[in-house]
């Protein structure tokens, strides 16, 4: 057991750090949840891609660096430590791409991955429906067979960044009468500007307009845009879900950087007599370190050929609660300034806490709610009896 970086990993860290120091915009970009911010972040994706930093863990042929999992973690640590912009391409890069690597055809990989890596095509995830959130398998949007492809019908909702994104991937019911709801689903990709697609923005808690619902009215999708076998969509989707909850959606770098900023804020602002607040700062620091180390252990296991299963639910609950704790503690440290939005004239120096807090509140909801994750942990990791249902 050791935590020592190899010479190659140390060199990789230096290279990433130097590149980020030279390229990270001096002033934060506008929020990627707005039209202008979305465009600015798309440009940033292109800038990353130009020097092959947008998808470091991918094969070189798709714009990556063939970086190991550890190197990817190193890159993420450096990325957040440098205060670099949020990743507008993350749904595609973190959710769709791993699915394509596992289930996609060579043609699909060749066609989809390159433009995803450069930010030319930004992807949205179209899984949830108004009546199908936690119980995702109850989804009702349909894919009906037609010559050379499928017709999509129905409604998808709460799709992150879909208001400005280019394409979407999602699950559709292709066989209406199967014994179990998980059967007869098909995983498809479709353009958001195709005939029959209506995108309606829905403001989030922060009022920003990038969230959207999608109305699909006989949207044609060719067979070449089905991922995996028709009818096998659930299985295909679940490999994505593991990614979403586990490592790739929330690498530790984000929380380590936030913990550093929180500690700095505490040193500058806190009343030393307020030990209750000090304890919360310490817990956030300890939590960020624990998440980093836990991830290193997982990465070590993955490097030896194991796979992450229900364990990714442990990560999901932990990082989402940690994120809230980090941000709530920061708002408390900021006192009256904690009530200001990040773009207020008098917003505090270590900016980003207001947006960060608002977004952190969604963590226990998206990517499978924490209640659902706790059920998975209890049933699959602890072996407790299944819930009575129906």
């Amino acid at each position, binding site marked *: 057991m050791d935590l020592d970086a190899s010479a190659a990993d140390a060199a990789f860290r230096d290279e990433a750090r130097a590149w980020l120091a030279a390229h990270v915009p001096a002033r934060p970009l506008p929020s990627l949840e707005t039209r202008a911010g979305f465009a600015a972040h798309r440009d940033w994706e292109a800038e990353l891609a130009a020097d092959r930093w947008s998808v470091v863990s991918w094969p070189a042929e798709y714009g990556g660096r063939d970086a190991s999992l550890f190197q990817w973690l190193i890159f993420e640590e450096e990325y957040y430590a440098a205060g670099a912009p949020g990743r507008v391409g993350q749904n595609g890069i973190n959710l769709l791409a791993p699915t394509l690597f596992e289930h996609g055809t060579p043609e699909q990989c060749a066609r989809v991955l390159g433009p995803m890596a450069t930010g030319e095509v930004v992807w949205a995830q179209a899984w949830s429906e108004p009546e199908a959130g936690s119980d995702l398998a109850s989804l009702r949007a349909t894919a009906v067979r037609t010559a050379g492809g499928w017709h999509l019908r129905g409604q998808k909702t709460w799709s992150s960044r879909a208001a400005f994104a280019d394409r979407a991937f999602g699950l559709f019911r292709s066989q209406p009468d199967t014994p179990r709801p998980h059967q007869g689903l098909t995983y498809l990709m479709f353009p958001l500007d195709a005939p029959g697609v209506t995108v309606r923005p829905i403001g989030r808690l922060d009022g920003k307009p990038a969230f959207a619902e999608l109305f699909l009215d006989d949207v044609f999708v060719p067979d070449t845009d089905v991922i995996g076998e028709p009818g096998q969509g659930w299985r295909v989707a679940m490999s994505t879900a593991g990614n979403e909850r586990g490592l790739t959606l929330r690498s530790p770098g984000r929380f380590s950087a936030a913990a550093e900023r929180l500690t700095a804020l505490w040193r500058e602002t806190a009343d030393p007599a307020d030990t209750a607040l000090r304890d919360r700062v310490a817990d956030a620091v300890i939590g960020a370190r624990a998440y980093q180390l*836990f991830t*290193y*252990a997982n990465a*070590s296991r993955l490097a030896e050929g194991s796979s992450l299963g229900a364990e990714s639910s442990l990560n999901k609950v932990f990082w989402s609660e940690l994120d809230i704790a980090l941000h709530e503690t920061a708002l408390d440290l900021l006192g009256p300034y904690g009530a200001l939005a990040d773009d207020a004239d008098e917003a505090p120096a270590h900016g980003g806490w207001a947006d960060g807090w608002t977004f952190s509140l969604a963590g226990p909801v998206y990517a499978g709610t924490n209640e659902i*994750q706790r059920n998975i942990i209890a049933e699959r990791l*602890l072996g407790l009896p299944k*819930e009575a249902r129906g």
Partner: protein
Amino acid sequence: MRFLLTDEQRDFARTLDALLGASGTPAAVRSWAAGDHKPGRDLWARLAEAGVFALAVPEEHGGLGPLPLELTVAFIELGRHAVPGPLVETAAAAAFLHRMGDAEAATAWLPRIAAGDALVGLCPDGAPFALDADATDTVLVVRDDTVCRTGTHGPVQPALDPARRLARPLGGTVLARGPAVTAAARHATDLARLLTAAQALGLGRALLAGTVDHVGQRTQFGRAIGSFQAVKHRLADTLIGLEFAQPLVYAAALALAADAPSAGAEAAAAKAAAGEAGYAAARTALQLHGAVGYTDEPDLSLWIRKARPLRDAWGTPAECRARVLAE
């Protein structure tokens, strides 16, 4: 980087687990609590044979160490089986004696510690009580930059965990004085925090496993209580607490092994997290066992009572949290 135990380290843990599982540990705990140290000392001798104490003692004094990581692996198992006695204190005393620079004291005690012949108490500056002073062969008491050695103690105080016997050390002769004592005491405290954290982690794992078994068998309302969500979610949270404390414990062991400047903060972080996780596991176990969890006949009670003192020994969570932010 390979942040995983080696096969050898895992085998060592399994061996200790099997050894302790076959040793009637709960009976030894009950005897210890009643002041009969014989079964506990027998257990101690078996642990010494398996090499546990030698890991705390350097080779030149008949040991195999110091090997903080292997010690940690062992202490997780000692915690899992709620082994009684001044285990942490003896290992920390070994580190202290080695670092303090008094050759005579080191030669006198370290080989005996390695062989499992000596139980040694260690009272850091400010600690009023010595653990198991009625069972130890000697107690080292640190006050400011001075360390004394004593064999006498006040009356054993009734305690929350009767198997952790607390008494005031009395009298004593000065062994050494000066900055080397302070530095050695600081290092010994870091090691003691690490090993207490490891014990708390093992204790929590045992409490969780026992509780999962129980809720899978116990039925109410016509079904296993483990199928109720309120029960499941509490156990899921218990697992999360332990799972995320564990890597902190291993990382602190690595930092101590390397004598890294971060070792103090890392040991404190491990202690705060594992102490809280172990205590939370005890609260969960008590609650989900219902009234069974509140009775002292099942062995469960031995584990439950240990959780709170382990959380607070060698630095309360608040002290450890302050230490994390000290640099």
